[in-house]
């Protein structure tokens, strides 16, 4: 086991958050420094240096939004695509969808222009038979042509390559001979799974990100080495696991949700340690509210995500549901007289009216300021001296109060109520709609704003409680430190369950397991053990959707122990959970084999974060101020949250302040500090 110091670094749009942990001493430190957009290495190093010489650190784990931003802003590399004769437009044709149910306007520009998508004569059939063999010269010529057109990365995607990658691998070898850099990959390496659009999109987006993420990581790596850092430098992937920078440079598409995934991982770990294995995490940012469900301590993974219309990434990712309601969301009354909050947002610049940076339309944050929930004298982030409450109130009166015939305070409360309803809707979506009883779940807000709204979420959705981590602002950085190492693989197999050749599938599983293990083993971070998990995507013949079927098996020296009966039993169990009714007599098909290797990191004892013994409620008390709840002013007690001792019980109305978050305790709720330093907000005992 390495004993030394590990640092988690989460680079966001505005701030870089760092979490330092000395594993031997059980000592931690946090830091927050401004991000340097475009030259993130500066803020990154500056942050690291707050913990002493960089050379003394033993490992660094990084959550990044460089990939996400490159996708959202369409700032990836110029890339080329080589594909099967007749199929060069797959990327642009998508799955024949459109952006909105209602309204036919809008177009779509793919990440590879049509003149950089070249076809070669080759064909494999669905059963894996090569019908037309590949001529490597044709590929070399196509690759050379793309190079002259300025392509920096190359994706090769052939139809049915999931069933037999032979032609693709030949093409890859030929292209590699003439390609001047390592940015060349074929779809069988990235996603050997059926569905040509999803596979092409994922492979192309990987190429699109490769030069960007590659040069970003190289730059960071150089900067770290020049400071004398010699340890492993790792990246958080969208599945919430950690990978080596070498893997990240090969599979940059797996970093698309790196930052948010780290936050969910940490929130899940904190909540589990606090005795809340079932939670719904909520990250309220400037423009959106991101929720994710954790059941029995396990995050839930989605097989694919759509970054933007037509930009599909198919690789396991922590399932995050996003709605357009954030602190910067603008409130307005529409032509039909209905109050709306978002999705239009003032973002962080110009930001809310109260920031005095030029916006005149009221936002959710303005409503929280006017209601006294946010302290106007001590704005979060520390950039502004104070917030302009009067301007916020005037904007609310003009844009919401007057059209609805409400006084400004009622209008501000209405904005918060509508925003709360939207957040509650997102929580219902991931809980009730998936068959989970919300009464079993606690909300875990992280990021800056979520803790302002926990009371309403408890009451509107019927949640058990809310758990505000001790350092909500650095949750993602903490997640970097505690995340396991993980590598996911998928392979389409298309096998009928009846009469399954179990030994053949077993051999395949063992091979997949060995390959996945190897990636984890070579990552270089200390792990306690490596678990291999298998899942099959299965359905009744004729269905198109599959159910994920976890297999109660793992890879051992004697194989996995797979039999037809084991697979059938697991399928029926999973199908029944989803749809209650089995369909006896209908043949069952195994579509995909999914393999994950997970390197379990040494246990992180969250007691390290708890407040010291000298803390006391009296010392934490800052005074009182009027805060508006349910149509009236209440005199709320204000506390310095980090100074509250373990076991403190605070009755609402109260406000708990810390530099990067504000927790609101409604009059009918109670907050207590648990032995890890978390604040638990619950209904007051009557």
């Amino acid at each position: 086991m390495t004993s030394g110091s590990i640092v988690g670094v989460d680079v966001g749009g505005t701030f870089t958050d760092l979490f330092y942990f000395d594993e031997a001493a059980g000592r931690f430190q946090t830091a927050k420094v401004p991000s340097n957009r475009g030259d993130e290495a500066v803020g990154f190093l500056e942050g690291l240096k707050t913990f002493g010489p960089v050379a003394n650190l033993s490992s660094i784990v990084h959550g990044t939004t460089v990939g996400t931003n490159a996708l959202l802003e369409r700032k990836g590399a110029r890339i080329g695509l080589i594909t099967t004769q007749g199929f060069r437009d797959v990327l642009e044709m998508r799955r024949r969808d459109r952006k909105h149910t209602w309204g036919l306007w809008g177009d779509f520009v793919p990440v590879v222009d049509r003149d950089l998508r070249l076809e070669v004569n080759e064909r494999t059939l669905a059963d894996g038979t090569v019908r037309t063999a590949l001529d490597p010269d044709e590929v070399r010529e196509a690759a050379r042509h793309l190079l002259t057109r300025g392509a920096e990365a190359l994706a090769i995607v052939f139809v049915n390559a999931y069933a037999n990658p032979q032609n693709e691998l030949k093409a890859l070898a030929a292209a590699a001979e003439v390609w001047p850099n390592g940015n060349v990959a074929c779809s069988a390496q990235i996603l050997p799974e059926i569905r040509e659009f999803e596979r092409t999109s994922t492979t192309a987006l990987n190429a699109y990100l490769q030069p960007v993420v590659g040069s970003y990581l190289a730059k960071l790596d150089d900067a770290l080495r020049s400071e004398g850092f010699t340890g492993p430098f790792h990246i958080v992937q969208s599945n919430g696991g950690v990978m080596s920078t070498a893997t990240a440079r090969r599979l940059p598409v797996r970093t698309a949700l790196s930052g948010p995934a780290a936050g969910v991982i940490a929130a899940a770990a904190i909540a589990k340690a606090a005795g809340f294995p079932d939670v719904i995490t909520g990250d309220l940012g400037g423009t959106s509210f991101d929720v994710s469900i954790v059941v029995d301590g396990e995050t839930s993974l989605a097989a694919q995500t759509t970054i933007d219309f037509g930009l599909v990434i198919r690789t396991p990712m922590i399932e995050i549901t996003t709605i357009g309601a954030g602190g910067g969301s603008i409130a307005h009354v529409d032509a039909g007289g209905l109050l709306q909050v978002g999705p239009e947002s003032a973002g962080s610049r110009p930001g809310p009216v109260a920031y005095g940076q030029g916006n005149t339309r009221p936002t959710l944050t303005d409503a929280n300021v006017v209601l006294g929930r946010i302290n106007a004298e001590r704005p979060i982030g520390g950039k502004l001296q104070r917030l302009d409450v009067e301007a916020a109130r005037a904007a609310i009166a003009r844009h919401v109060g007057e059209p609805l015939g409400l006084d400004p305070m009622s209008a501000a409360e209405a904005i918060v109520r509508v925003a709360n309803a939207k957040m509650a809707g997102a929580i219902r979506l991931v809980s009730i709609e998936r068959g989970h009883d919300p009464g079993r779940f606690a909300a875990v807000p992280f990021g800056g704003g979520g803790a302002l709204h926990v009371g309403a979420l408890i009451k509107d959705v019927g949640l058990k409680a809310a758990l505000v981590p001790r350092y909500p602002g650095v949750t993602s950085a903490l997640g970097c430190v505690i995340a396991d190492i993980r590598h996911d693989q998928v392979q389409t197999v298309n096998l009928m369950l009846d009469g399954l050749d179990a030994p053949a599938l077993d051999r395949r599983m063992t091979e997949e397991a060995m390959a996945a293990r190897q990636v984890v083993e070579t990552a270089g971070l200390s792990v306690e053990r490596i678990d291999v998990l298998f899942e099959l995507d299965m359905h009744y013949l004729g269905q198109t959707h599959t159910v994920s079927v976890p297999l109660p098996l793992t890879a051992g020296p004697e194989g996995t122990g797979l039999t037809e009966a084991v697979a059938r039993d697991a399928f029926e169990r999973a199908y029944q959970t989803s749809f209650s009714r089995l369909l006896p007599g209908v043949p069952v098909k195994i579509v995909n084999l999914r393999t994950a290797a997970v390197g379990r990191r040494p246990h992180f004892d969250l007691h390290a974060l708890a407040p010291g013994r000298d803390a006391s409620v009296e010392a934490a008390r800052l005074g009182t101020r009027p805060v508006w709840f349910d149509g009236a002013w209440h005199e709320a007690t204000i506390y310095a949250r980090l100074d509250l001792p373990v076991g403190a019980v605070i009755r609402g109305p109260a406000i708990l302040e810390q530099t990067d978050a504000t927790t609101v305790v409604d009059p009918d709720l109670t907050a207590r500090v648990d032995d890890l330093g978390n604040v638990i907000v619950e209904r007051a005992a009557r």
Partner: protein
Amino acid sequence: MTAIDPVTLAVLKGRLEQIADEMDATLYRSAFNPIIAEARDACHGLYHAETGATLVQGTKGLPIFVGAMAFAVKAVIDKVARDGGLEPGDTFLFNDPYDGGTHLNDFRLVRPIFRDGELFCWLASVGHWLDIGGNVPGGFNARATESFQEGVRIPPVKLFTKGVMNPDIVAILQANSRVPMSNFGDLNGQLNALDLGERRLRQLLDEVGDATVAAAFDAFSERAEALMRTAIAALPDGTYSFEDYLDNDGITDERLTIALDLTVAGDRMTLDFSRSSKPCAGPLNIAYSTAAACCYVALKHVFTDVPANAGCLRPITFVIPETTLLGVKAPKPVGGYTETILRVIGVVFGALAKADPARATAAPFGTINALSLAGHRADGSRWVMFSFFGGGLGGNPETDGLNHANNPISMATIPPAEILEAAYPVMFTQWALRPDSAGMGAHRGGFGAVYEVEALTDADVFLLGERGRFAPFGVAGGGSGALNRFVWHENGEERTPPMASKIADLKIRAGERVRLETPGGGGWGDPRERPPAEVARDVRLGFVAAEAAARDYGVVVSQDGHVDEAGTAALRKGVAA
């Protein structure tokens, strides 16, 4: 009526829409047939107790159903008025296209929700079942001259009485389909959706009170009506006429006219289709409710801010006589209804473009191209590949039309070629965008597609499509998209169907191919106002031929794909003069 405050109203809107959305999601996930599971050919909502008017719709339901469901619930209300005997726990089932349906494949389930012994509202579910008998597997019989050749027709019947299912009805349904298990799975999926919707609605009613929710229903309708009236009032008064054509009815090769006289008078609008062709012999007819529903779809696509409930139809008057092909009664065949409603939607766009060019959308590709290939595998088992294909949307004031999109009546995605090849003995030799298919314009249309498929066994081929003779129109000076084309080869010679885009008896041998080339969308605005750089880009990308760039757009594009400024200036000047 209980007054309702605006904040509660905003909150309830989200809660109720979420219930309908969740009903949709439940059916998508548990449905057995890909037309529901993948293509989302389904819809759910809450409907008014007395009128059946739409109160709340899901945000993802199939657009054409969103318009049609109110008529479906009304059909059940009429039956109850006629026959009596409505009780808690009842659920009605039907597919009658002439009484609140669309075509026979679309099965409706309608369930009353009682509160304290009084009918509070209705819940309903509709989904497209794979096969309900008839001459052609999967429906879409281009040769049908009577409903009886299209499948089995079920009037509103009680599937559940006081919570107990009548298994005889299920047995009748099973006996009349080529795929009884698939239909049974879908029926159960729809029941799951209704059960869930009922549970959620009852929770909400218990939580906030029946009176408050009822007041919210009224307020939603009033709000939709107010928004629609405002939108109509913004249009200049007058009558705007537009006509478009269907190729033929599949029986006789004569064009069919869809004619609309759209009149705006203050905040009211009349849609008069009286000048349209009379009912036809083939399956291109539709019933009144379907015609009204697709007008609603067209208006929703133009006035996107107006909420999806019946209030928005209050300011609209429909004139859809029984003497036209848009208001037929049983047993006139309606299996090709998709083609007719797409044309109706197009003429609404065309007439509105005249009223307000700022909201003008050129014609979308306008055909679903229901293509099926069927044959027998080497082991003797039967295979049927059935799918709908995409095309280009119309140019509009904001953007070019979207390439390879779904139709305005649906949000259906297309199955990937690899899924089709894995399931059926076929091999696609082309799956591509179709160059030169987009209508020219300052904002050109989206491009259609080319699908070429080789059968790996002998196969029978069926196609029900349109736009083989009359192209998607442009607006505000834009040009037309390309015509739909379906071709195959016999003895080395290219052949096309005598009925342009409809054929029911084509046989091809293993190793032979058929090729479908779908229309692009119409263009918006004067093509000579399109920025030369964008025209050059289209040429560089191989979408527009250099000659077409010069001829249609007045832009000279050099060999290397750049704008020849001097040549363009001269050409555009010359063209303009």
